[in-house]
């Protein structure tokens, strides 16, 4: 096989796979499925390899193997190996989750699951409170008469008013303390209805902006692909 062709083989494959993905315009078809399966497979394989070579081996198996291979005394190396051993144990327990139903092995896997869920929840909640909730609440306390170096700034006042009122209205939209009355659908209290309506507007605007950003991102992806395909195709067309 010519070297140029071999060198271009990845590009050719990229081009081909891109076209295969574009065939989805015609509906679900085998080419598209092939491309999708390849993508998912390669991604999963790559992730496994990364996890093993970047996490499992260097942080769990490696120290154990090395210490055993080096013949170190277990008691001596135990302090350093303890985390690895604990990780190994939990990993094995997690694998036991594959066992059926209510067996005792499955319950051992629940130990690892419980540890993972518990630790993860604690970290996430703590971080959310300290990293997001408090700072954002603090950030909402804005002065409606902001002062700048040049004095009172109406622009910033409007900005602050929108931020404050938008934040409160958005929070008010998520008030679900409706009273259940027989024969009537649940409704918000009368005071909460206009606030929820404004919050709904703000949320709608935010979602619209997010949609616009996603659209731009998709166009960027599309443009990048087209450019890439052209760059691959151009040499074969005698260009560039």
């Amino acid at each position, binding site marked *: 096989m010519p070297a140029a062709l071999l060198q271009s083989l990845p590009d050719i494959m990229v081009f081909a796979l891109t076209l295969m993905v574009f065939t989805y315009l*015609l509906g679900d078809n085998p080419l598209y499925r092939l491309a999708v399966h390849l993508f998912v497979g390669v991604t999963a394989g790559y992730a496994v390899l990364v996890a093993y070579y*970047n996490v499992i081996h260097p942080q769990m198996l490696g120290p154990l193997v090395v210490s055993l291979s080096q013949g170190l005394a277990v008691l001596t190396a135990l302090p350093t190996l303890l985390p690895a051993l604990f990780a190994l144990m939990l990993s094995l327990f997690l694998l036991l989750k594959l066992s059926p139903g209510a067996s005792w092995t499955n319950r051992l896997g629940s130990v690892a699951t419980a540890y993972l869920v518990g630790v*993860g929840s604690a970290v996430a909640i703590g*971080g959310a409170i*300290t*990293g997001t909730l408090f700072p954002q609440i603090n950030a909402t306390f804005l002065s409606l008469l902001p002062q700048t170096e040049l004095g009172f700034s109406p622009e910033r006042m409007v900005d602050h008013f929108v931020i404050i009122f938008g934040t409160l209205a958005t929070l008010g939209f998520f008030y679900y303390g409706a009273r259940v009355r027989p024969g009537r659908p649940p409704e918000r209290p009368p005071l909460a209805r206009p606030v929820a309506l404004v919050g709904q507007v703000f949320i709608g605007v935010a979602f619209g902006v997010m949609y616009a*950003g996603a659209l731009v*991102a998709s*166009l960027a992806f599309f443009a990048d692909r087209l*450019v890439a395909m052209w760059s691959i195709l151009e040499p074969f067309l005698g260009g560039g």
Partner: protein
Amino acid sequence: MAVIRCQACGKPNPDFLDVCQYCDARLKPLEAGPAPEAAPAGDVIRCQACGKPNPAFTEVCQFCDSPLKPQLFGFGETTSAEAGDQIRCQSCGRLNPPFAEACQYCEARLRPLQEIAGDETAGATAAPEPPGSPGGGPESGAQPGMEWMRRLSTEPSAEPDWMWTGAAGEEPEPAAAPSEETPDWMRPFGGEQPAQPAEPPGSPEGGPAMPDWMSSLGGEPTRMETAAPAEEVPDWLRSFGEPPSQPTPSAPAPSRDIPEWLRPPESSEAEAAAPLGETPDWLSTPAQPEAAPPAEEVLDWMRSSGGAPAQPAEAAPPGSPEGGPAFGAEPTSAAEMPDWLSALGGAPAQPEAALPAEEVPDWMRSSGGAPAEPVETAPPGSPEGGPAFGAEPTSAAEMPDWLSALGGAPAQPAEAAPAFGAEPTPAAEMPDWLSALGGAPAQPAEAAPAFGAEPTPAAEMPDWLSALGGAPADVGGFETRPEAAPADETPDWLRSMGISAPTEPVGAPPEAAEAAPDWLSGLGAPRFAAPAEPTSPFGAFTEIPAEAAPAAGEMPDWLSSLQPATPPEVPGAPEPAPASSLFGAMPSPFAAEETPTPLVPPAATAGLALGEMPTWLQSMRPVDVQPSRVPPEVDNYEEKVGILAGMRGVLQAEPAIAKPHKSEVPVQKLEVSEAEAAQATLLAGVLKAEAEEARPVSKRRLQIALPVERWLVFAALALAVIFPWFFAAGFFPAPTTIARETNAAFELVEGLPTDKPVLVAFDYDPAQRGELDPAAQAVIFHLMRRGVSLAGVSTHPAGAGVGQDIFNELALGLKNAYGVSYTYGVNYINLGYIPGGPVGLLQFATNPRSLFNTDFSGAMRVWDAQSAPEMSPVYGLSDFSLIVLVSSTPDAIRAWIEQTQSFAAAAPVVAVVSAGADPLVRPYYEANPPQIKGMVTGIVGAAQYEQRAGLPGGGPASNRWDAIGGGVLAAVILIIAGNLLGALARMTVLRARKR
């Protein structure tokens, strides 16, 4: 707090509630309220029916209207003992004023009739009579309402004499005082002396308070006044069950179980007080025929009607103390026979002398046209001197007008009226009403009218009778005829009444018009005879002028106008039944013996015009009508169970009418015109179209539309992207306005020290490289160009590879562009993948060295000063000069900020995010103090940063600016056009629906 679940709706409710708060159903069962006696003396009384509280002053529950206090619903209980002056109704329990006779709520009587009658006559007191008193009874104290019945059953004095059921020979106890409960009209029969009745006007003798009609008929008031109670018992009743002998005074207590008149004949003694229940003479065996009842014993009405001779007061006859025939005994003489009986034509074989003229009541005298004879003495029955009741008017003058008008003028005033059961007197003695009925005996001696002779001519006929068009001579069946049925075929009693047996079978229509009675003939059979000239005392009201009187055989106008029109001929329908006399045989409904006569004469419909049926209704007329063949109902059902087993004609438990069955009438066609058929078709089409509109779009249509739309949009976008890139470079100018956050990021990178490394986190997949690579490359190239050491990490498994690739590409480009060598391991290093999400980040933030020993490739030890000297001074996140977070999702940014903020206070954070994540990441930038110092958002931010950084030849973002611009422009146009088209289509659909 306990919860009670409602049994109706199933929703939980607090336990302190009695009623469900959702459906208002009771949660707890009703409990019986306290007894009224136990009710609190306070303000509330709980109703025993519904359990709800009521004020103490109310008598009836305000929720369910039931009485709150126990009611004493004893029968006949008076009210004064309970509710003071008010009367409590025994039906509904409500209070009424004391003067009320009927309950004002339920209209039930508040006082028994006996009580009211007693109050009216003698001003009775409200106090009940003590038990055992003549006027009271053993239960009077408890049930005064039943007192009148009790008196009748227990006390002889309360009973009229004729109801006396005492033992033979026993006389009824005379009432010490006139009974307060006995009405006046019953007193004569009860053997009671009238209690000081008011003197009738004109009554010289001050007789009892007797109605005038009785007094006028009667008799001598003296007889009734002075005679013992037993004297007032009519002979025919007195003689019932009583032997002619008088009862002994020492007779045992009377048995009141069997009325005397039902007992076998017993001897009765003529005493001053004859026992009640004595058999009348006519029912008793003849004992002493020679003894005529004293005149005073015979009631005047009987005497006057029967023509019994007015005899002076004499010894009592055999059958009664005063005389009169015993029970079962034939009246041997007219004197023994009650007058009314004798008047009916049953005069004994021994006619007695006629009653004196003064005994004929006026009404009889005047009606009969009898010569008005002067009245010398007071007449027996009336002050005017009319004949006594029951006495036959001896002359026309004595006959009442109405009676004489009926044609009952006595023909033989000297003849005694026949007694009941005797041979009928001549027709002249027949009462008019009888003779008018056509019951004149065939033989003058066989039948005699009770109230006169043969019917008078038509001139004497009352107007109302003559107006009916029934001439006496024309009355059929009941007319007095000289030719009557043979006497042997007619019962004596009937013969005596002057009624002859019909010669025609029952049900047979009369053959002659004269067979119908006058009053019947007046009902309008054309064949009925026309009435003669009326001579009724009521002529002023009923007299019909001669010219207005319908002719013989004609129906009166009012009746003829009711005749229906001739019914339409229905093929196959049976002919209507002919009209017939009401006294004739009912013809078969299917008989066609006679032609049907229209109910409404044609003359009545002369002025009516035939109505025109509207065309729309005419079209609905069924044209194909099958004759309904309704089978005749035949009940063959025989009950098989129960006590009615074996019987026919029993109502079934499941009547056929309740069972659905198909009509036997066949389907009929409708006559529909072409226009109507077209309209019906149009209506069906409209309905079908509406139904089709509601259906969803067909699947095939969607299968074609969606791919076409997809291709079109793809094509438009592709052209919009490719065309500017190929043919319109520079069409979209590079951005000149730098965003505040992008400029802040640039400034921050520009001012970084070079002795500390920068941590770059590549938290995105290769799929997002098209958007984030330009921004990341712009920032990283700027950092490389400044000579800042870089360390790459990623929380995504594939992000480390992306980072590796970006580092390598930019290092090559930097070298090519600026001739600066950027060496891996010396200038930049890729630490690799951080597992565990936020937990791994927290670990990395706490101690970066604990997480990585080698780099991403595994070949280099990260913390070795020789292999990676830029990483040797790093022990924590604060040892980095800048943290650049590149992510396509806001979650990674949030996780980094939340976990590392406390550990990287000295290291600012710059976020390079996708355009879609910008709204959720910007609050961290807008925070106070800001948690993110700068942001580069998407391809637009990348282009701005490249412009700001002055990268040579632009950057990838700048190179794709035209393509991206074209694509964005096309997308905007497509979105706007699509919304407009969608709104237009919606409006069109709405307008179509409105139409």
